[in-house]
């Protein structure tokens, strides 16, 4: 069956450390993958898109990798701050549809 799994429901780290979130998928062959941020009581907000032929994408303190052989994307936040605390969702395009993972709730402690 097709699945999108994000590494853990919750991740707690100390301010200043690098947060690494994982998105694994099975039985999909997405042409691209997106990462979104969702704050409590709000809709998701787009962060980054990475295409299947791109290995890595960066935006300020954010970095995304995409390994189509491992069927995995890693999302890194360097020098994390308490303001980075949120739920992060990965999303794959699947036959004219978008499929979202359940998300990982990141808490950055001061």
């Amino acid at each position, binding site marked *: 069956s097709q699945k999108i799994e994000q590494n853990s429901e919750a991740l707690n780290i100390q301010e200043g450390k690098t947060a690494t979130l994982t998105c694994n998928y099975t039985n999909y062959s997405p042409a691209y993958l997106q990462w979104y941020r969702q704050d409590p009581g709000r*809709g*998701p907000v787009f962060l980054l898109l990475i295409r299947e032929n791109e290995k890595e994408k960066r935006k300020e303190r954010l970095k995304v990798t995409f390994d189509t052989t491992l069927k995995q994307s890693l999302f890194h936040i360097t020098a994390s701050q308490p303001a980075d605390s949120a739920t992060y969702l990965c999303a794959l395009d699947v036959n004219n*549809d978008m*499929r*979202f993972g359940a998300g990982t709730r990141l808490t950055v402690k001061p």
Partner: protein
Amino acid sequence: NAGVTQTPKFRILKIGQSMTLQCTQDMNHNYMYWYRQDPGMGLKLIYYSVGAGITDKGEVPNGYNVSRSTTEDFPLRLELAAPSQTSVYFCASSYSPGTGTLAKNIQYFGAGTRLSVL
């Protein structure tokens, strides 16, 4: 800077009641979507529209209906509310310059409607 606006923010329905969740966007996006989000689950696509007058089913369309008479508006209708429809509903929009794969674009989400069916 309104973006995607959803109303109402909260609603409690009794089993069997009907209601319409409103969604409007001011970005002139051609694509619009309705998702539901249940605790611990990813967003599930209910219906989507590629332009005015055109709608199609997503992953979980049963119990819902949509219409798209204008570019801006994409209401979601629940005809006979059931407890299984208790969820948070998100409307989103995106722009795609042509036909083909519908999701190759950034989606902009509304703030959501929290619906409880009791």
